[in-house]
């Protein structure tokens, strides 16, 4: 016997065998042949022999392709000869079952093919022999892999949804849109509303009275009916316990078995909301306090300015009178004053003038303290050169070697930095005045934290024991008969450097000169 698709075996087609029941008209025969040869299902004609052997009597082209066997390899042979043994065993068992029962048998099996794991659905149809006994089986095998995969994907998707729904920390419910009956809800939702599962199942969600404002609820339902999803809307709910909570509500319309439902999720953000409100309240409080402090500071500044103004004006006027009238006495009544009297008046004048200078120094210090730092690039070397030039003009008799590193610049306020350098170089000039040949230096070193500028002299120096007093206002380390001054210069320098965010310190020893160091952020050295 050869393959059934050969014309010579047309008589073996099921249902046509000798035409026991009825004769197929030729047109139907053609149809059957076309179906047999053209279908993508695998069709096998099998005969169950005595002893249960199953012999292949024919197969269609789809089966040849599917099994990767030719008809010659299969026909008139037991299926076990050309099918994998497990598969053959199953096929034979089922064929016997089919023949014995005279009913169709369906089953599935999986086969590992070069295209991967494939699933096949097999249908065995019994064919009656002449005389009524069943001895033949038509086997139709179909690759059901895509169907199986789709079914599996759906199952997994459902499992994922169930997991996402029931395992979610967000409260989730599904209600029917028509009557708002609860059909599904998760544990998080039960925990939120604080009721046991059996007391809420099947009830309408509206009966629970969760919405504080039903108008909001109706608006959301309106949107859902229109197919518009609701995403993270902030809503207010009252739980059955009476506690009010704020949450983010999301909802969307879904179809279940062709009926519209709504899937809800609710995230309780009451705590977060309260924390936010607390932060807002604290911020407002902080701002209020800052404003208050700022106002106090502004008031203090205004007061300080008024005070300085008053000092500048009113404190000096009496001094002027003391000095002026002492001078008048010295001029007009000289003949009536003896040497002691004149000396007294001279001391009165000296003291009042000195007090005038002290007042001026105080004002300078206060002005420096109040001054606003207007930052720009400042050429410190140029300023230092100018200051030393002025000092030389004032004291042309002095022999001073001035060593200057050119191109030292810094970012800062030109006026304030000038005042600082005037004080530093002025000090160096003053405290070297007893040396016949003095040396003053302005230079800088580069350290880890940028530039360190320094003004060095070889003058009288100071006792390092008192270094702490150096930068305090009105603290002097030298008696006035040695060097005049009011002890305000370094205090001024320190305030200026601090205002720029820098540091200032000094090194020295008695008779060994002084080096004052200072830093300014963003110091540069342009060569």
């Amino acid at each position, binding site marked *: 016997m050869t393959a059934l698709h050969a014309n010579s075996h047309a008589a073996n087609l099921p249902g046509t065998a000798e035409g026991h029941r009825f004769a197929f008209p030729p047109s139907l025969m053609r149809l059957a042949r076309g179906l047999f040869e053209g279908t993508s299902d695998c069709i096998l004609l099998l005969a169950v022999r005595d002893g249960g052997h199953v012999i292949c009597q024919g197969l269609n082209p789809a089966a040849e392709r599917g099994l990767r066997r030719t008809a010659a390899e299969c026909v008139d042979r037991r299926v076990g000869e050309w099918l994998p043994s497990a598969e053959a065993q199953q096929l034979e068992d089922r064929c016997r079952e089919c023949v014995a029962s005279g009913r169709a048998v369906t089953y599935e099996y999986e086969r590992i093919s070069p295209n991967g794991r494939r699933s096949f659905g097999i249908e065995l149809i019994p064919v009656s022999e002449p005389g009524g006994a069943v001895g033949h089986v038509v086997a139709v095998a179909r690759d059901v892999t895509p169907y199986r995969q789709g079914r599996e994907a759906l199952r997994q998707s459902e499992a994922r949804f169930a997991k996402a729904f029931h395992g979610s920390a967000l409260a989730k419910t599904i209600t029917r849109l028509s009557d708002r009956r609860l059909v599904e809800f998760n544990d998080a939702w039960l925990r939120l509303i604080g009721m046991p599962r059996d007391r809420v199942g099947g009830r309408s969600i509206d009966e629970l009275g969760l919405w504080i404002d039903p108008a909001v609820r109706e608006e959301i339902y309106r949107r859902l009916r229109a197919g518009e999803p609701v995403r993270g809307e902030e809503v207010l709910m009252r739980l059955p316990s009476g506690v009010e909570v704020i949450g983010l509500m999301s909802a969307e319309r879904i179809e279940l078995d062709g009926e519209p439902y709504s899937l809800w999720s609710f995230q309780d953000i009451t705590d977060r909301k309260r924390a936010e409100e607390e932060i807002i309240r604290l911020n407002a409080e902080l701002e209020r306090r800052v404003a208050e402090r700022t106002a106090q500071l502004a008031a203090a500044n205004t007061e300080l300015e008024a005070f300085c103004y008053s000092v500048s004006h009113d404190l000096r*006027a009496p001094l*002027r009178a003391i000095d002026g009238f002492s001078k008048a006495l010295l001029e007009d009544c000289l003949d009536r004053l003896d040497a002691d009297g004149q000396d007294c008046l001279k001391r009165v004048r000296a003291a009042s003038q000195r007090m005038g200078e002290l007042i001026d120094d105080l004002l300078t210090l206060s002005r420096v303290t109040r001054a606003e730092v207007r930052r720009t690039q400042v050429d410190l070397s140029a300023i230092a050169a100018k200051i030393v030039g002025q000092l030389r003009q004032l004291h042309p008799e002095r022999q001073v070697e001035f060593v200057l590193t050119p191109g030292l610049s810094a970012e800062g306020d030109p006026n304030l930095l000038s005042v600082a350098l005037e004080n530093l170089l002025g000090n160096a000039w003053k405290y070297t005045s007893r040396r016949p040949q003095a040396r003053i230096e302005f230079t800088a070193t580069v350290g880890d934290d940028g530039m360190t500028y320094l003004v060095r002299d070889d003058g009288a120096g100071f006792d390092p024991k008192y270094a702490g007093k150096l930068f305090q206002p009105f603290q002097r380390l030298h008696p006035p008969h040695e060097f005049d001054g009011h002890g305000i210069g370094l205090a001024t320098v320190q305030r200026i450097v601090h205002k720029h965010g820098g540091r200032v310190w000094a090194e020295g020893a008695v008779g060994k000169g002084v080096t004052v160091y200072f830093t300014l952020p963003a110091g540069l050295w342009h060569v």
Partner: protein
Amino acid sequence: MDTRPILLVEDSPDDVALTLRAFRKNRILNEVVVARDGVEALDYLFATGPYSDRDPTAAPAIVLLDLKLPRLDGLEVLRRLRADARTQLLRVIVLTSSKEETDVVRSYTHGANSYIRKPVDFDSFMSAVGQLGLYWLLLNETPPSGFPVPPGIR
């Protein structure tokens, strides 16, 4: 030499005495009219109040103006003088204790011709007054009286 009177606007009697002394020592022999506050100064200059029988067109040679004054302060006096056509060319020298930058700047923006700070040291004060007299009474050219002010110059 400008021999018209000098108006000294000063509330401190001590400062008045010292200023007069400084004038004398510097041989500035102009008559000195003292106004003890801003209101008095304006009364004198505009010939009002106690000075209503004064000839308002007889302007002083210079006005020495303190800033801190009772009733009406120096800056306000200056502002009113510059706002009036009769006195807008008057030479006003601010003579004060303050060397606050704001005072200096505001005095000049209000139209002061000069700003002199009274030093504590009487010798310095004397020399300042002497230079002031030399400059403003002797060297400086006065605008002719009744000089028409072109529009836009104020």
